[in-house]
């Protein structure tokens, strides 16, 4: 089948068995690869009783249709399984070079089941694949593990995806990292750790992206590239990164402060913003394969307490918010340090920082005491305890053992009302305050496939004015909580479901008709805008079906009061969406039953999902 390699590597760690499995062409045609394909595949094997950290969970690394081609910003790979953190659909994606390298080695993806009886790593090349002993790597951080494996392979071009100590210790929100990019959310690193799979290395030399219509594909790539190159977001992310909006969002209320409780313009934001970082510490960008944006940055801190040993990853937006404004810490260099620690131990920065900020909130409201948290004292603005918590979580030491289970587990132990915890479906919400953009309500709490997510429904960016009208996504007032907002957000979820199948980056927004052309000319399946909409809705609904199978109920679509209580200041002062109203409109549009959450038959039939 054009656009795909046509095979996946299947590994059974319990049996020490590796073989090739042919790509399911029907799944590929209907879900395009990536997370969509993975969800359809895993649906047949996982259910409500599957323990996510048992040998029965299946971990998939899956590239998308466009991965390895020169289509812009489409080199990600998806990592999917049942999430140990939320116990629903687990999905995250990672940029860098691992995905294209996997395709160069001759595979569209990897399916991993079972559990090894000792630490191993999987070495993949185009000629052979082998499980190797990783006892000497167990206990090492991500940087060191990657370096050792590259040296062992004899090539710096060998690509490594691995876990750190967080994954080994089954921190429920551990990450998998590759080339300083992370598959961050939903705890896929813990699944990998539970299988005692420390790393996967891949080296391929074939350049084999074969579109069905090479000339047409080339033309579509050119169109996509032109649109992306001329977009303001490309300039913004390329020059500054994801942190470019901090100064503005400080005023609009999108930047959360003091664990979601403060709307005032915070002076500290200017000290930590991406714009300050660009002037003070950023030295260069390091783009992913086939990306002309280059949102990720390298930084150097030349002196002081947080002096770095050469170039390190510069914090992205979620780090600045999580270790900055959420605890009112205005020391940029200290955030760089927290960022390095999370990424090297291999724990999700967003979940970690939100869980820790939750402790600051409780401590400063006299709901927990110092003795509850290993004697640490938490004062707003003081980041020092954060470093302790990051280490304790990663090694499950002391209170870290409970914190490794996340905010809800901590809240439950200390009898904190669920309405005071900024989680939905058991996962911490990203740092784009929904009170400043009501579209984020749907991103976080209405049928969100993997739980609260700013990538599967990035209304906060789209409603700045990115034109997607071809896909039926019109520009609307960000403070609307009506039927139109429900529909626009649902359509954006569908579009982003295509992205997660193509493994494209949401920062790249060619016209939807160009995306249809890319699919059409790559696979030769006669794709247009209407078919693109169906592909997106089908992928979205597949994840909904998966979640229903895992036991998701309409009552799980909820928001805690702490996220809905209107802020007193900022441009969003006094504003809060009517959640129940949005829920009703959203369910109606989606064809979800308000009592059971199930998708109506008409919709399933239309999408060809009626047999599931």
């Amino acid at each position, binding site marked *: 089948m054009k656009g795909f390699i046509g095979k996946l590597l299947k590994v059974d760690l319990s049996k020490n068995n590796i073989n090739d499995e042919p790509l399911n062409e029907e799944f590929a045609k209907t879900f395009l690869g990536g997370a969509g394909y993975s969800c359809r595949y895993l649906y047949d094997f996982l259910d409500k009783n599957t323990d996510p950290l048992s040998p029965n969970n299946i971990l998939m690394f899956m590239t998308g249709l466009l991965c390895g081609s020169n289509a812009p910003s489409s080199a990600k790979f998806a990592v999917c399984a049942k999430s140990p953190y939320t116990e629903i659909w687990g999905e995250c994606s990672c940029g860098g070079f691992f995905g294209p390298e996997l395709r160069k080695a001759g595979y569209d993806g990897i399916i991993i089941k079972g559990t090894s009886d000792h630490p191993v790593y999987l070495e993949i090349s185009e000629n052979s694949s082998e499980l190797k002993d990783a006892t000497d790597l167990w206990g090492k951080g991500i940087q060191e593990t990657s370096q050792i494996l590259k040296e062992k392979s004899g090539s710096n071009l060998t690509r490594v995806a691995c876990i750190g100590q967080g994954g080994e210790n089954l921190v429920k929100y551990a990450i998998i990292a590759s080339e300083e990019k992370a598959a961050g959310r939903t705890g896929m690193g813990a699944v990998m750790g539970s299988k005692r799979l420390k790393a996967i290395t891949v080296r391929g030399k074939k350049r084999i992206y074969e579109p069905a219509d090479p000339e047409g594909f080339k033309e579509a790539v050119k169109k996509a590239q032109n649109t992306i190159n*001329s*977009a*303001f*977001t490309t*300039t*913004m992310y390329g*020059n*500054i990164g994801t942190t*470019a*909006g901090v*100064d*503005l969002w400080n*005023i609009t209320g999108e930047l959360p402060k003091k664990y979601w409780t403060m709307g005032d313009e915070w002076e500290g934001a*200017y000290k930590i*913003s*991406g*714009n*300050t970082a*660009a*002037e003070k510490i950023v030295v260069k960008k390091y783009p992913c394969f086939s990306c002309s944006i280059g949102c990720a940055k390298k930084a150097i801190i030349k002196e002081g307490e947080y002096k770095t040993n050469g170039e390190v990853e510069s914090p992205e937006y979620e780090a600045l918010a999580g270790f900055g404004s959420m605890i009112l810490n205005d020391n940029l260099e200290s955030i760089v340090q927290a960022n390095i620690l999370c990424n090297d131990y291999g724990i999700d920065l967003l979940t970690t920082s939100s869980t820790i900020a939750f402790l600051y909130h409780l401590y400063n409201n006299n709901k927990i005491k110092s003795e509850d948290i290993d004697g640490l004292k938490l004062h707003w603005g003081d980041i020092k305890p954060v470093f302790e918590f990051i280490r304790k979580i990663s090694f499950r030491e002391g209170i870290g053992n409970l914190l490794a289970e996340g905010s809800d587990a901590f809240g439950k132990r200390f009898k904190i009302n669920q309405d005071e915890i900024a989680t939905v479906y058991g996962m911490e919400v990203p740092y784009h305050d929904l009170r400043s953009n009501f579209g984020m309500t749907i991103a976080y709490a209405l049928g969100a496939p993997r739980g609260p997510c700013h990538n599967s429904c990035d209304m906060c960016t789209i409603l*700045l*004015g*990115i*034109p997607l009208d071809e896909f039926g996504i019109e*520009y609307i007032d960000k403070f609307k909580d009506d039927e139109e907002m429900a529909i626009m957000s649902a359509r954006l979820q569908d579009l982003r479901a295509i992205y997660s199948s193509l493994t494209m980056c949401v920062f790249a927004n060619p016209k939807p008709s160009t995306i249809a052309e890319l699919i059409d000319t790559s696979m030769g399946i006669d794709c247009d805008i209407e078919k693109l909409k169906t592909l997106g809705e089908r992928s979205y609904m597949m994840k909904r079906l998966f979640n229903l199978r895992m036991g998701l109920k309409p009552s799980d679509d909820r928001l805690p009061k702490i996220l809905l209580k209107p802020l007193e200041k900022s441009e969003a002062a006094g504003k809060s969406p009517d959640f129940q109203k949005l829920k009703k409109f959203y369910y109606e549009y989606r064809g979800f039953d308000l009592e059971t959450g199930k998708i109506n038959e008409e919709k399933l039939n239309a999408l060809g999902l009626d047999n599931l």
Partner: protein
Amino acid sequence: MVKMLTEEWVKAFGDAINKNPNYKPSALTWEGDMLLVIEPSGKLDHEVRVFLGLYHGECTEARLVKEGEEVETEYIMAGPYVNFVKVMKKEIDPIRAIMAGQLRLEGNMANLMRHTKAAQEIIESLGMFKTDYL
């Protein structure tokens, strides 16, 4: 009512920036002049450039740039005449116009992003006095 793109209109624009209560607080640390490049479209058949001297929350100078005159500024905001008109008539939000590529913003990106609100208020000021469009 002043005729758009005349010296009188440019002066009114500069005055409007200084009278805009939201501009000064958002631009207290802004240093760097801006050139508006209004490109031919609709009823405008030639390019018009407007120089804005901007320093610490004040518009220090506003004038039309003569044809052929070389001007260097820290920042440039450019776009077709019809898109500037849409913003002035509040048919489109200035940030949306920039994000959607209807207006282009060039210059030191870190400084611009720090002062997005100020850039927005400069454009908002265009709608704060009565204009007789072309």
